[in-house]
């Protein structure tokens, strides 16, 4: 596996060099804004070669993730992403309620009704803390006038 990671980092190093090529590298005497990124990229390429040449002999036993677990993790992550995308259009209260309901179901295998009750309490508390106490001006979305 280490060789694959090394290859990825190797490509990343070159990508940085390529994307940074428009920046002025300058000289060592008068270093420009491109010098430091170029040096980092060079170090990354060097390290990736070391990793490819000397991969760890014994793989650290990382617990294998079952397809089911992976699906669960992806679902939670997708939920968070959707939260970010809809926060400003739908408003804080709606998205927070929907997300927490989903999370309670995803994390514990509880009844939906119980999850909804908990989600209402959570959203309410978060609203009290951030909007009322800390005056954070959360997005009202479609609920706002």
């Amino acid at each position, binding site marked *: 596996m280490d060789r694959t990671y090394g290859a990825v980092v190797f490509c990343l190093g070159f990508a940085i060099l390529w994307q940074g090529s428009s920046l002025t590298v300058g000289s060592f005497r008068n270093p420009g804004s491109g*010098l430091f990124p170029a040096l980092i990229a060079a170090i990354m390429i060097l390290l990736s070669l070391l*990793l490819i040449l000397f991969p760890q002999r014994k793989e650290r036993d990382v617990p294998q993730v079952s397809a089911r677990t992976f699906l669960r993790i992806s679902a939670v*992550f997708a939920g968070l992403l959707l*939260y*970010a995308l809809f926060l400003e259009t739908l408003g804080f209260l709606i998205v927070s309620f929907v997300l927490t309901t989903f999370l309670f179901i995803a994390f514990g295998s509880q009844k939906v009704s119980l999850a909804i009750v908990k989600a209402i309490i959570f959203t309410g508390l978060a609203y009290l803390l*951030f909007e009322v106490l800390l005056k954070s001006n959360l997005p009202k979305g479609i609920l706002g006038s």
Partner: protein
Amino acid sequence: MELLHNLYTGFTVALLPVNLLFCFIGVFLGTLVGVLPGIGPAATIAVLLPITFSLHPATAIIMLAGIFYGTQYGGSTTSILVNLPGEASSVITCLDGYQMARRGRAGPALGISAFGSFIGGTLSVIGLMLLGPLVARFALRFGPPEYFALMCLGIVILTFLSRGSMIKSLISASLGLFVGVIGTDPMSGVHRFVYGSNVLLDGVGIVPMVMGLFGIAEVLSCLEQKEVRNLFRSEIGRLLPNLQDWKESVGPMLRGSVIGFLLGILPGGGTIISTFSSYALEKRISRHPESFGQGAIAGVAGPETANNAASTSAMVPLLSLGIPSNIITALLLGALMIHGITPSPFLVTEHPQVFWGVITSMYIGNILLLILNLPLIGLWVRLLKVPYGIIFPLILLLCLIGVYTLNNNAYEIIIMLVFGALGYLMRKSGFEPAPFCFAMIIGPMMEMNFRQSLIQSRGGFGIFFKRPISATLMGLVLCLLLIQLLPKIARERAVIASDDSV
């Protein structure tokens, strides 16, 4: 006399009601996240960073520092009662602490770790108070090359101490350095790797990065595990250790304080390694080394003292040099900069209220923690019974809202999620996230000092090796890198690293 005067300055700041309140909030939250596995001080401080914008800088740092040393108290509770470290720095406490609990001595184990934490913390504050100003005076001689060399050393030590392959940790650090470059170049005003995004113009935010890397990613990886918690059900019993316990613990505590203090000061060093060193030392010099792992109280007292001493002395380089030595102090540095205070050797003279106020607040914080962790231990134990199904959604929601309220910008959430995914993948592929985070925060400072050095030397790299202080530091950097090539030491390091994953 000067010291007394400084202490007076400090206590007049630390004893202000508002500072007392925020010190309490800090240590309370610290104990809370210390007890709860899954969320650590880094993510907590990141969540609370925006809230401190409206506070006085001294108040803000007093609270944030309180979270840091507070977690060192709380972390041991989970280790002892559940055999699951609340924080990485209390991993070693599981070994003997949990064994003590199984033998019905949970009370003394909790008691001695609270007292040990108190002693370590307090002794270390005294050290910080005496050493801090001296270091600051010494650091006035530092120029850009010295700062650059010191930061290189910090990164290399951090990667050296990380578990797993050092090459991978170095790659992780260089990735972090690169992400630190993104944004507007402070020296020329050129936009670098911004791709027309307005959010990236000021650079990638530290807060979304830390929350993603240590908050979101942690919760995601916890989703893999089934909830297994064998909460210790029997009575905790009396907390106060008896005379015999004290006799066995005094030595480890004093040695732990010294080890913790010294390792905490090291750039890149810190709390975790101090616990391992203390445990190893106690086991080596003990008359009954076989009792270690079977519930030896010295195996709890030493490491628990050491991690608190280290978390306090980590403030030395931050307050007197302006250089963070670990992720937490890097975040505190960010907090100070937001308040318009650039930490430097001049902090002592220019902002004595901040310098001495924060230091003296640590005496008060340690006393508060002792109260919180001894009589109120039952509260934290009850907290352990709250299922993950409640805690994880709460953490996720707090991260989402917290990062949004930074600038009222939903793109910050996306950035946090990107780092969340990155952090999860890094954990899975054996790249440590800590060097990445540390390198990203100090990256811009490093680049600035690097370029200034080169301008100063008219392009000669010799400047890093000709000046005595930076030459010594650079020498250490090279030594640490070369040591990796020596098979014997690499093997021993691998043993330490594998112990780390107990």
